[in-house]
């Protein structure tokens, strides 16, 4: 039940924001638990954004994985 899905913030009105889950359909979610701005990706759980996803961190994770794997001898 801790499933949470990334979505892009399209517009914000107070505690509510319209977000896009990737299929162009906008859904209203509550953003009072995060400091999100338009264009951010947020993680949505049961109608509430619980965290802002750091795109920079996501890309760094990918390169970190590769570097860890390269650095470790077989």
């Amino acid at each position, binding site marked *: *039940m801790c499933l949470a899905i990334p979505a892009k913030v399209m517009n914000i009105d107070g505690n509510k924001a319209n977000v896009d889950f990737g299929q162009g359909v906008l859904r209203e979610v509550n953003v*009072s*638990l995060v400091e999100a701005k338009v264009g951010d990706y947020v993680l949505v759980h*049961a109608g*509430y954004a*619980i*965290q802002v996803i*750091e795109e920079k961190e996501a890309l760094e994770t990918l390169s970190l994985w*590769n570097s860890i*794997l390269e650095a470790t001898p077989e």
Partner: protein
Amino acid sequence: MAENLKFRNPELAQNIAAKIKSLAPKAGKTKICHVCGTHEWTITHYGLRSLLPEDVEVIAGPGCPVCIVPAAEIDEAVQLAQMGIVVTCFGDVLRVPGSKMSLLEAKAGGADVRIVYAVSDAVEMAKHESQKQFAFFAVGFETTAPSTAVEALGNPPKNLSFLVSHRLIPPAMELLLGVGDLQIDGFIAPGHVSAIIGLKPYELFPRVYRMPTVVAGFEPIDVLMAIYMIVKQQSEGTAKLENEYPRVVKPEGNPKALEMMNKAFTVTGGNWRGIGRLPDSALQLRESLADYDARLKYGVHVEQGKDILLGCECHLVIIGKIKPNQCPMFMKACTPEKPVGACMVSSEGTCRVWAKNVAIQA
């Protein structure tokens, strides 16, 4: 983020699996426990166990917040519904067995029980139907509790109250370490609980218990990477807390959510289905919100419920002691269509995940 696809890259998965295999002889037998239904879904759905060497085992702990709601608290919700109060809940909760009946059975008997997608739906319903009394059955771990806190603190309508059954994950992880014959060697900590609570609550596992602990995300590569990181620690004889999921989990968690939780709830002892009472593992509304506490408002309280039916082995599945297919009822008397135990009810229950991915298990 087109880069998202890389989190499911089969080549990378094979690469990580090869690394795990090469470290396994040095690491020795390694039993890794995760405590999240979504992790179990990822592991089972993508067949990750088939990529692991024989000596590396991944087991599922009490990671489904629906499965561990004790029957007594389902009974309380049923009581409320039978008193004429509209009970709102998440869909997963509807079929969880109580001592005598589930909320679905109460609904079939004429009670007004409604599924909501978010706690805010319950608030809207209560506003629109002001002549009726509403209760929201607040189930879930730290991922879900902040949303209940937002609405409880947000001046909700007077005809809405909360039946709070939220539970906290770290005390359950600590309990598993006390189960003598379970002998866990490492923890995969749940990414979305950690998005709220941060890293600090897990610090005791490496420090006190010498237990490698890795916070992980939910893509197949996330989970494989976490397994690799634990096996690597094990092979080096170290025990550290590492964060595999920094794109979502910050060391401090979500301070705003933690503050809301702290304002709305106090921490107390709570019963877990199949486990029993765990100190400091449950949330209850603060005294300042007592008017919104369904238990106080309507005087419902069930001291003891019937958690496990005869023959059901959910209590052993929940703590990872047996696998679902080791329960004699699995896919015989207990199926997703006609579940007997709570682990088969919720979409994140270990038995349900295994039942739905049976081809991958075979």
